[in-house]
């Protein structure tokens, strides 16, 4: 492999890796720095399982080149909890049985957090459209939407 050196920040930590220029950030995160919470469901931006934030913006990491991460800030599911304290979304996903197989869960959590960061009291419709880029094949989305509603309530109470 001929690699390009990339200096980036992942979940607040400085990280350095080398990757081929045509490698996706998804592959870099999984294979170079071992963050396998970021999942590949399609590799073409259609399923959202690889959702991350890049400088705070929600993106599919399969549609970003690893080299583009140089100097940027990346957020993944691994950075959601604060130490041993789960994020309200994580708690409510468990409480509401919002996951069955769980493969889509990291992407949903990252996307739902991006939504709640912008809008802490979304309507059901806003939640459904904000999560339309994340495919779940197990749940029919019912309990996922309910979990996001419950978490948004928790977050509003906290303030």
């Amino acid at each position, binding site marked *: 492999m001929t690699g*390009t050196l990339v200096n980036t920040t992942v979940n607040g930590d400085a990280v350095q890796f080398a990757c*081929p*220029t*045509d490698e*996706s950030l998804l592959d870099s995160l999984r294979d170079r720095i071992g963050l396998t919470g970021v999942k590949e469901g399609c*590799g*073409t*931006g*259609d399923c*959202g399982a690889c*959702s991350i934030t*890049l400088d705070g*913006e*929600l*993106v*599919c990491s*399969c*549609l*970003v*080149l690893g*080299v*583009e991460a140089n100097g940027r800030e990346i957020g993944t599911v691994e950075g959601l909890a604060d130490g041993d304290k789960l994020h309200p979304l994580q708690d409510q996903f468990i409480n509401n049985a919002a996951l069955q197989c769980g493969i889509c869960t990291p992407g949903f959590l990252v*996307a739902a957090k*991006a*939504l709640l960061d912008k809008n802490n009291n979304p309507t059901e419709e806003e939640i459904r*459209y*904000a999560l*339309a*880029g*994340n495919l779940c094949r197990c749940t029919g989305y019912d309990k996922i939407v309910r979990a996001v509603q419950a978490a948004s309530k928790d977050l509003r109470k906290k303030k």
Partner: protein
Amino acid sequence: MRYEAPTTTKEAASLIAGEKGEAFVLAGGTDLLVRMKTGLSDPDLVVDIKHIPAMQDIKTTDSGTKIGGAVSGSRLNSNKKLKKAWPGVVEATNLIGSDQIQGRATMVGNLCNASPAADSVPAMIAAGAKAVVVGPTKRRTVPVEKIATGPGRTSLAKGEIIESINLPKRTGKSGDAYLRFIPRTEMDIAVVSAGVNLTLEKGLVKTARVCLGAVGPTAVLVQKAAKAIIGSKLDEESLKKMADACSAACNPISDKRGTVEYRTKVAGVLAKRAAKIAFERAGGK
């Protein structure tokens, strides 16, 4: 694959012009990375334009609004002024993919990918938008409808890059709208689509532009459809005339997303619905 991230458009243009192999501009990457993943493209050079300041601007001047080539859909959506002036253009761009895609995808990328089903393109054409094209040596300004020449093909010469899209200044009572038909509520490519932009005078349509997507090799500006509603209050008769003109202008294919008959019929339906929204937005009653 060589990856370059220049800081000026000219530099970017020169890099691409100088590459002997396959060279691509990387804006949002939401088309390019899919092509790479599925083996449709194996670039020798990728030029990331997101580090070029001019590409990241949304600037409103006396003559209109200039939107940089690397401005993402989500940035467009958070620009309230632009949304107010050109709601149809913004909503068309925002319809592309999910929130994740919106975090990256750009109007110019959508245009240069040259898919006949590109969502932002009929809206831009209806709006009368112009593209600022920068080559290694000169710049030119071209109406958006002159960019795509067929599926995946553009009129841009090698090394030419679109730096920005210029939307005309809004005056008087005006409104635009874009609608597409997709089988789901999100995440699909338009089966057929319609963008309508119009201005009103004394409650009647004074000027109009109607543009269809996914009904031919490129977006189709339908002058007869515009004519059908100019001078009207969008009464049923003129709307029907417009819809018929739209259907008549269709030259679609049957493919995995829709049939010739379906696209032809629904093009008119969507144009009617979009015209009504644009009319309302312009303050029409």
